């Protein structure tokens, strides 16, 4: 069990926890949190491969992680904006009830 | 100029801050237990009973006429009249209060009892260090705690005490003069009509 394997296993576990959250949670905001978790798991992979990869000086892993954090933050902001708009429209954030496309 | 208001404010507080160390008149706080603020003459706190002379029981001016008890808005005065009489300052036998309680926790120091008292027997004290350990009995002051001498009254309210004494003295002088005048008139009447048989013995009418 080399350290790289440990990190990859950990990020796989994080990813599956996030996926479980997305698939099972009822509250829209917590689904968004699950997506954030999946993004973070991917970040962990990038940094692990940068650290144990052949050419750490190229900094590609770190750059990817930084850009992905920025995008995840933007995505969280827009996602929550949409959730707020949906809530104002339908007065609920329960995903099981939001099953009709009619405006 | 932008921010001038803020700078003026800061300058003002700085002047206050430094001034408080330099000029003494800026700091007017009195360090209470050590330095005492001068007693303000017209201030009042709770009533007290005035007695002339030295013996609080003998010289008490109050004749328990119950006027102050009736007039007191929060009803915090409680008087029990005595059965016997004692001579007051002018020698006339008067009742005196056997018990005279004031519930200080209720009294709102409105001075109505002082205004209505016909005998100037009750005046307002301005002692304020009155903390007590018990909320009930300690704040129900009895006659002994309330009685204070006339010269104490002079000490705390000099001008008012002097005015009251002057009035009392004048009233006594007037009654004495009236008594003397009535005695002289009685003597003159006796002189002018000697043959009238001696009147029945006076049944101890007062000398007033």
């Amino acid at each position, binding site marked *: *069990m*080399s*350290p790289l*394997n*440990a990190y*990859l296993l950990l990020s*796989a*576990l*994080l*990813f*599956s*926890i*996030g*996926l*479980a*959250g997305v*698939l*099972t*949670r*009822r*509250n829209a*905001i*917590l689904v*968004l*949190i*699950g997506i*954030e*978790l999946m993004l*973070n798991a991917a*970040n*962990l992979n990038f*940094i*692990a491969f*940068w*650290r*144990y990869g052949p050419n*750490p*000086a190229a*900094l590609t892993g*770190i*750059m990817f*992680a*930084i*850009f992905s*954090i*920025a995008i995840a*933050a*933007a*995505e*969280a*902001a*827009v996602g*929550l*904006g949409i*959730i*707020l708009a949906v*809530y104002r429209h339908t007065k609920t*954030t*329960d995903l*099981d009830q939001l099953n009709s496309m009619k405006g | 100029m932008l921010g001038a208001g803020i700078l003026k404010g800061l300058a003002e507080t700085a002047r206050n801050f430094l001034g408080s160390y330099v000029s003494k008149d800026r700091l007017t706080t009195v360090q209470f237990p050590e330095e005492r603020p001068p007693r303000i003459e017209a201030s009042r706190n709770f009533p007290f009973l005035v007695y002339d002379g030295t013996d609080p029981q003998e010289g008490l001016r109050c004749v328990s006429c119950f006027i102050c008890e009736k007039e007191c808005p929060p009803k915090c005065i409680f008087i029990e009249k005595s059965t016997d009489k004692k001579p007051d300052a002018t020698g006339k036998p008067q009742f005196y209060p056997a018990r005279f309680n004031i519930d200080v926790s209720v009294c709102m120091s409105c001075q109505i009892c002082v205004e209505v008292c016909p005998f100037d027997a009750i005046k307002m004290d301005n002692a304020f260090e009155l903390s007590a350990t018990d909320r009930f009995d300690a704040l129900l002051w009895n006659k002994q705690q309330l009685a204070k001498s006339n010269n104490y009254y002079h000490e705390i309210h000099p001008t008012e005490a002097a005015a009251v004494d002057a009035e009392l003295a004048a009233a006594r002088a007037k009654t004495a003069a009236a008594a003397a005048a009535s005695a002289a008139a009685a003597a003159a009447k006796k002189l002018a009509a000697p043959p009238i048989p001696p009147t029945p013995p006076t049944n101890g009418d007062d000398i007033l």
Partner: protein
Amino acid sequence: MTLFFLIAAALTIAGTAAAMSLRNPIHCILSLTLGLVGLAVLYLQLGAQFVGFTQVLVYVGAVAILAVFAIMMTRSAGSPQQPAFSRSWLSGSAVAVVVFAVLAWAISSALPSTKIVPPQPAVSVNQIGDALMHKFALPLEIIGLLLTAALIGAVIVAMPERRETP
């Protein structure tokens, strides 16, 4: 597999698992921040200091507060009346377990477990800055554009339509 790594990993797993399973959404967010701090510690342990601090700054400082504000505004702060998990929670978690199993099998079989550990690459903030300015200048500009667009977009989406108000 140092002890320090185990502690950080345990903290992350505990935080994220709690975030996905607790009933009260606010508790979920707070345990999520715990998990994210654990993740930042992992980044520090991997030597990526800059990413670790950015992670704390962006996620714990901003995204968690954003999510909490969203929860507050959609009035789902208290513990929800209806059950916290959707009806199809069983199939959802089954899919997740299957995904994890596949990933775990792929990881353990694919890489030869090499024991040699390359030395800790000391990356300084200046190197990151140079890389950002030279090699990754274009992505930096695009990220700037994207963040501004997201900023304006989120505000417009969340703002109530002007017509509706009387």
